[in-house]
């Protein structure tokens, strides 16, 4: 599995056009997350923008694999189909850990430097962000495995707009204060739901991969 993770990392960061896309996205979004004194942007950054990066870990490898029909060769390696899919989920989780670590750093900046939110509120936002990351990863990954690069990316964009829409609508209708005052139990439930969905998504993706490559 290490070889597959290494390959996917290479596809993401060592191919100039893909690396450039990451650098551009990071430059556009991350500095603002640390510098802007805004509850709205802080929530948008921690709960939507950063969680989306977890789903990106599969986009470029899928593109590269489809271009060279690499999956056929991959299946001749001494790894099972389940291991191939699991390796990709592990990398996605790695992305989530990194992104949510960034979200935590951003939270600390917002709490102690900008005084935008209190620590308890910031931790709640981080928890929700991890939950959304896991749910997003589970939905997007199953989409990529089922639909391939082209339609998978369209699905990715559609889900992104949906989440952004839900965020926008809830900001207007309920107000972001509701997010800050969300019960810790609900945050834990969200985390649990995200974890369960990730496991289920991985199992479904293994079935999809096996079906597509048999």
């Amino acid at each position, binding site marked *: 599995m290490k*070889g597959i993770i290494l390959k996917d990392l290479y596809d993401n960061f*060592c191919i100039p056009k893909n690396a450039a896309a990451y650098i551009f996205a990071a430059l556009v979004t991350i500095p603002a997350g640390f510098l802007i004194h805004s509850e709205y942007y802080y929530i948008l950054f921690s709960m939507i923008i950063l969680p989306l990066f977890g789903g990106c870990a599969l986009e470029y490898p899928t593109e590269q694999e489809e271009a*060279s029909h690499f999956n*056929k060769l991959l299946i001749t390696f001494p790894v099972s189909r389940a291991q191939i899919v699991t390796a990709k989920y592990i990398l996605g989780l790695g992305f989530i850990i990194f992104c949510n670590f960034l979200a935590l750093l951003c939270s600390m900046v917002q709490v102690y430097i900008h005084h935008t939110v209190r620590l308890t509120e910031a931790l709640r936002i981080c928890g929700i962000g991890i939950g959304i990351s896991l749910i997003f990863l589970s939905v997007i990954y199953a989409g990529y495995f089922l639909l391939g690069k082209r339609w998978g990316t369209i699905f990715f964009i559609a889900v992104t707009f949906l989440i952004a829409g839900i965020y926008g609508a809830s900001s207007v209708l309920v107000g972001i204060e509701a997010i800050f005052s969300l019960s810790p139990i609900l945050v834990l439930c969200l985390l649990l739901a995200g974890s369960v969905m990730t496991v289920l998504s991985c199992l479904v993706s293994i079935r999809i991969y096996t079906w597509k490559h048999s």
Partner: protein
Amino acid sequence: MDHSAVTSTEDHQMDYAMQVKNLTKTYKDFTLDHISLDLPRGTVMGLIGENGAGKSTFINALLNITSSQYDQVTILGKDLKTQENLIKEDIAVIFSDSHYDLSFTPLFVGKMLSQVYKNWDQQKYLDYLERFRLPVKKRLKKFSTGMRVKLEFAAALSHDPKLLILDEATSGLDPVVRDEILDILREFTEEEDRAVLMSSHITSDLDKIADYIAYIHEGKLLFVRTYDDLQNNYGIINCGRQLFDALSPDDIAAYKKEAYSYRVLVSNKQKLKSIFSDVRIENTSIEDIMLFYIKGEKIR
């Protein structure tokens, strides 16, 4: 179907790199029909047949790339159903239609495969790259087709595989590169515990290297014969109607009727030489045999 040259139930499983019994794969419009063959260690088997005959389907089924039904598939003494990953540690495969990403460099391919195969020998890999004069840090998209195939051979051979499977791996290469590849294959099979299964349209390559020929036609295995057996027993006779009628139908594998004569592929050259001592019997190539079976007529 003649398997006698290869199959012997008394031989131990370990003498074979591969044993296949009744492998079947059914699609809507095509069936690979009960293929059974054995590949002895230390040999090269050429898999021939026209486009769509089922060669790639057979290879994909052997590698479990595509699902299939079979009574038994044993590769390197291990059962495909229960020991697939163990088998894949000891085999290497090169396809014509599946490659390493063109953005990879040979150096990265080595790094990746060192995490995939337990037996990966990075020094051996670098030696192959040097021998094939492949730059280690150049992306594959800047390589010629020949260089890419050589890289795939370097990658395939650096984990000490015992069985090399090539699916049209040399198609599209110029004769010089193909000749280099054949040298590599000869070198590879110098060790007795190794074997090669090679499907190719370029039958002249198989003439140079194959010990066995397996011929698949429309999903069925027509024969598996040793190359020497084919050379010794198959021949072509150009003759008129009188001689054609005198030949036993059992000796005629296929024939082509031409304007004023017959071209006959015979399958019992030695016997016919003794009977018709004044008749000239031409030697055949694998391509001749293939073309006769596909385009020639059979005596029912």
